[in-house]
């Protein structure tokens, strides 16, 4: 199994505040890595350093054999790394189809017809092909997030980063988005999934990181982690979810 992303001793501070305190992990091609941890522990910052939306202070990130850092051509790297955020971030002035084809046309210089064909295939996969001419405001939250996934996939990325993409959705809609992620994982897409849905974290990942206070505290198979967390911090974190029924 070939390693597509490796993060070694990654460090990042905002002023005096250390947010990433020596993070280590790697992701193999076709695998899903799930990241969980309390609010503010640095999960979003970690994802954002991987595609250069946030600069890091120390350590290294190696993506597809290339060391990323200050001299990196981030535009090229980002076109290989898909990312979906928590907030609904479709381009509100563009129809669904144009949201999806914008980057393939402008970044990859694809012809419009070719980009639209790719987009329609993706829309059919998420069963939203009938919404091709809808504007984002005409979609439900769950539909918006599925279109945002399709928009990132249209660039044919090597890896997808998901940052709590169901956190603003009510449970029903969150379900349809999580199902879309499970279907994507089944196609052997390499993914890093930050989530606060423990049931989902248990179901989707090949590997799981539990972060606390800028550090990776536990790493292992999700089933083992949830059955028998090894650290006090993980046990305390998980116990918070037990009262949430």
């Amino acid at each position, binding site marked *: 199994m070939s390693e597509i992303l490796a993060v070694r001793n990654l460090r990042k501070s905002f002023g005096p505040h250390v947010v990433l305190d020596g993070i280590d992990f790697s992701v193999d091609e076709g695998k899903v890595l799930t990241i969980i941890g309390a609010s503010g522990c640095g999960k979003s910052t970690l994802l954002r350093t991987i595609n250069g939306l946030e600069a890091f202070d120390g350590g290294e990130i190696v993506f597809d054999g290339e060391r990323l850092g200050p001299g990196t051509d981030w*535009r090229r790297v980002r076109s290989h790394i898909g990312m979906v955020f928590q907030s609904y971030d479709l*381009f509100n002035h563009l129809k669904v189809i144009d949201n999806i084809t914008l980057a393939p046309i402008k970044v990859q210089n694809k012809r419009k017809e070719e980009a639209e064909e790719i987009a329609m295939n993706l829309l059919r996969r998420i069963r939203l092909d009938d919404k091709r001419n809808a504007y984002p405001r005409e979609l439900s939250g769950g539909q918006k997030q599925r279109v945002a996934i399709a928009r*990132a996939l249209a660039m044919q990325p090597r890896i997808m980063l998901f940052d709590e993409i169901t956190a603003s959705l009510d449970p029903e809609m969150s379900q349809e988005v999580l199902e879309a992620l499970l279907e994507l994982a089944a196609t052997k897409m390499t993914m890093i999934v930050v989530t606060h849905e423990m049931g989902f974290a248990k179901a989707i990942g090949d590997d799981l990181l539990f972060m606390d206070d800028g550090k990776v505290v536990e790493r292992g198979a999700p089933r083992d982690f949830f059955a028998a967390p090894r650290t006090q911090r993980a046990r305390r974190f998980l116990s918070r979810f037990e009262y949430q029924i």
Partner: protein
Amino acid sequence: MPFSGAEILFDPANLARLGEGLIVTVRIAAISIVFAFLFGMVIGVIALSRSGFVQIPYQLFLQAIRIVPQIVWLFLFFFGFARLLGWNWSGETTGIVVFSIWGAAEMADLVRASISSLPAHQTQSALALGLARSQIYLHVLIPQAVRRLIPASINLATRIIKTTPLLVLITIVEVLKVGQQLIEAKILTNPAAAFWIYGLIFVIYFLICFPIAVLSRRLEAKWSAQ
């Protein structure tokens, strides 16, 4: 005889002169508005930079334009710079330059405010897709900002149109000046001339500005539906 004197409006010679004045008004206003919008867009995007090299000149420019009345700018360019620097600008050129600069400053601030009020994650997700900064402005931010800008920029356009009578003071014979000349020529034989001529000019201004207002409301309705 409440409608006596109205015949002044039916004299083709008078109407032709008013028409010529109107053409001058519309020409200066239209060219200024086009320049104001184009330069305003560019300056507004540049003004998003937080660097002092941008912010200090930008604020000086904006405040100078806002604090000093337009009439002073017109005089400064027409009488001041023209004599001092030997520019040989016609009144019309001066008018277009001053109104364009004024409009560009106001437009720039509208554009800057409108773009910076867009949610930050629009830029973030566009960056994450690999788009370049310039592409993000062109295809993501400016199109969304423009839709929000419509009401305020239409307001600015009508303000420019309504300020054209100041141009009389730098020797331009625009529609209001023609009206005055007609009234002065006719006032002895037709005491109601002022009422009819100014009344007609009132209607002319209304006919120019009203369609613009209607258009703006249409665009707003259309785009807010998205």
